[in-house]
């Protein structure tokens, strides 16, 4: 209790809207240069908020997280990317202090969640993959009582709740019960609720799943603003565009291990080509057409997907011209830049043809 209160009072004694905690400069710097600020940029620069070494989580005999090493610095937006069951949520839950690590070392704010759980949780915001709202209460009551769990005073909680209702665009639904809200509204409320204690570190497990495109873009904007205020973000997502937009640095997880780590641009440069030609054929099985597109000019790799072929190339136009010259006529041809989607495909071994 005293722990929660201490850190909350300290945090909220600062102007709530700014919620700067001496690291805003680091956050700004980070969002401008894309990679977390190293020491020297700001007083708190290079301050490691989360560090894991050999972090492992097993359920019975099954290993969900298999000895990962991660370091997240203050002010950074860090992403976990990976297919279903990769171990993203298991990792997030350990960082959030709601799941004990099986082995390895984990430090959050320099403390061990196993022994300093309440102190750590008081300083972080946790938006889990499932909403888990209090459906017996109204929208605003959900925020009020959550603030109390953190030891905030009634006045602090009310003030913060009003801001967060705006943030989540739920002001006009504030007196409604939670249960009948739409899925997207519940998601927004969950995110808002995770911010009630002005956290220094915000954990977002698939924050935009279930949101419509407009709500997603609004949320991205809000997250950018939080980041500029110095809040450190850890995000998991299946949306590659989201990862590219939001994350300074990310790791690609697969079967409990880290397959690659770097900034989105780094990863694309390292694991993909500059451009991709997407080909759709009028066929039941795109595998039939793989041979016809091998060895095209500029191309280095062909990926087979159920509904299309992807040709990785340094020059998309040259590649499609060569295709044309061969007399291969797809239903549609699209030349685009490589994205994290391609990195993901390449790294998680979901490719059938290389």
């Amino acid at each position, binding site marked *: 209790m005293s*722990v*929660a*209160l201490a850190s909350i009072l300290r945090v909220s004694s600062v102007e709530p809207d700014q919620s700067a905690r001496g690291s805003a400069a680091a956050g700004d710097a980070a969002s401008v240069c894309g990679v977390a600020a190293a020491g020297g940029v700001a007083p708190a620069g290079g301050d490691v908020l989360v560090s894991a070494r050999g972090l492992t989580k097993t359920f019975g005999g099954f290993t969900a997280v298999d000895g990962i090493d991660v370091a997240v610095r203050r002010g950074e937006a860090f992403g976990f990317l990976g297919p279903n069951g990769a171990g993203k949520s298991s990792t997030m839950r350990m960082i959030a202090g709601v799941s004990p690590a099986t082995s390895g070392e984990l430090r959050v704010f320099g403390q061990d969640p196993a*022994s300093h759980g309440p*102190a750590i949780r*008081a300083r972080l915001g*946790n938006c889990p993959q499932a909403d888990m709202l209090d459906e017996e209460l109204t929208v605003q009551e959900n925020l009020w*009582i*959550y603030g109390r*769990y953190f030891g905030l005073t009634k006045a602090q909680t009310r003030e913060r709740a009003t801001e967060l209702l705006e943030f989540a665009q739920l002001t006009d639904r504030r007196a409604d019960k939670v249960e009948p809200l739409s899925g997207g509204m519940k998601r927004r409320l969950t995110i808002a609720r995770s911010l009630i204690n002005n956290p220094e570190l915000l954990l977002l497990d698939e924050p935009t799943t279930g949101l419509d495109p407009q709500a997603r873009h609004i949320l991205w904007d809000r997250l950018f603003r939080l980041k500029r205020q110095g809040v450190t973000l850890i995000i998991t997502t299946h949306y590659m565009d989201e990862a590219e937009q939001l994350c300074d640095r990310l790791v690609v997880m697969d079967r409990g291990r880290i397959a690659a780590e770097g900034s989105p641009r780094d990863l694309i440069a390292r694991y993909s080509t500059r451009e991709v030609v997407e080909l759709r054929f009028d066929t039941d099985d795109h595998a039939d057409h793989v041979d016809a597109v091998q060895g095209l000019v500029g191309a280095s790799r062909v990926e087979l997907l159920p509904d299309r072929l992807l040709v990785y190339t340094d020059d998309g136009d040259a590649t499609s011209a060569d295709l044309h010259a061969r007399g291969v006529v797809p239903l549609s041809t699209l030349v685009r830049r490589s994205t994290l989607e391609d990195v993901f495909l390449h790294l998680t071994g979901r490719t059938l043809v290389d």
Partner: protein
Amino acid sequence: MSAAAGDGGRGGGGRGEGVDGVGGGIVKVGVAGRVARALPIPAGAGLARWVLARNLLAFRHGWVTLVSGFAEPVFYLFSLGVGIGALVHTVHTDGGSEVPYAVFVAPALLASSAMNGAIMDSTFNVFFKLRHAKLYDSMLATPIGPRDIAVGEIGWAVLRGALYSAAFLVVALLAGMVTSWWALLALPAAVLIGLAFAAIGMFATTYMTSWQHFDYITLAIQPMFLFSATFFPLSTYPEGIRWLVQATPLYHGVTLERGLMLGEVSSALAGHTAYLVVLGVIGALGAARRIERLLLT
């Protein structure tokens, strides 16, 4: 509203809790803080009051249950006390006195209603929150720990039970069924009965995985309600099964209440009290431990 005894730490499991490292903030220790510290909140459950506050908030949307919780024992009192009392007239208590049947049965109904109220809250409601609403999962993402949850939920069940018991006592008093000043202690005793059953009920609920399992609760509660020297004195039971009656927790509750309301106070009451306290402590610790096992996976 500042710190209570504990650190809001997760109880049980033998995990050491530390609070060092973040204690440097500004902590206001006002009058409320001192009052909070004086509250008998067990170590590691300093945030339990917010679990309780949450229930109060949710309860505002469903206060009708309050009426039913109060009405049931009062109906029993009049149907049994007055109805059967007209046939039975007086009863020889185990304490050796002879009293009208209604006076005999009123303390037992008080104890049973304290039990029923506590069991309802700590089994059905807790099960729903634990398995369906995922309420405790979201609480555990905050500084709140398993002990806060156990103490908060048990405290809530006790609080509700105390309301029913107080109302029941007033009715019994007005109906002339209270004969001793010791009855002033009947309310705290009812609170203790509620505590013991709420704690054990919550502990048991953490082992349940489907609604069918509630049949076991009914199976345990109903015979206890009927055969814990509730409706007739222990001396009327066959010698061979008296020990069985005396082993049930409700027997201790009934005997405690009867002793107080009839003014038949002896040192034996301390034994009944101790039995209920031990049950409450075991239940609360067990519930906290189980919640930690179940949810912090």
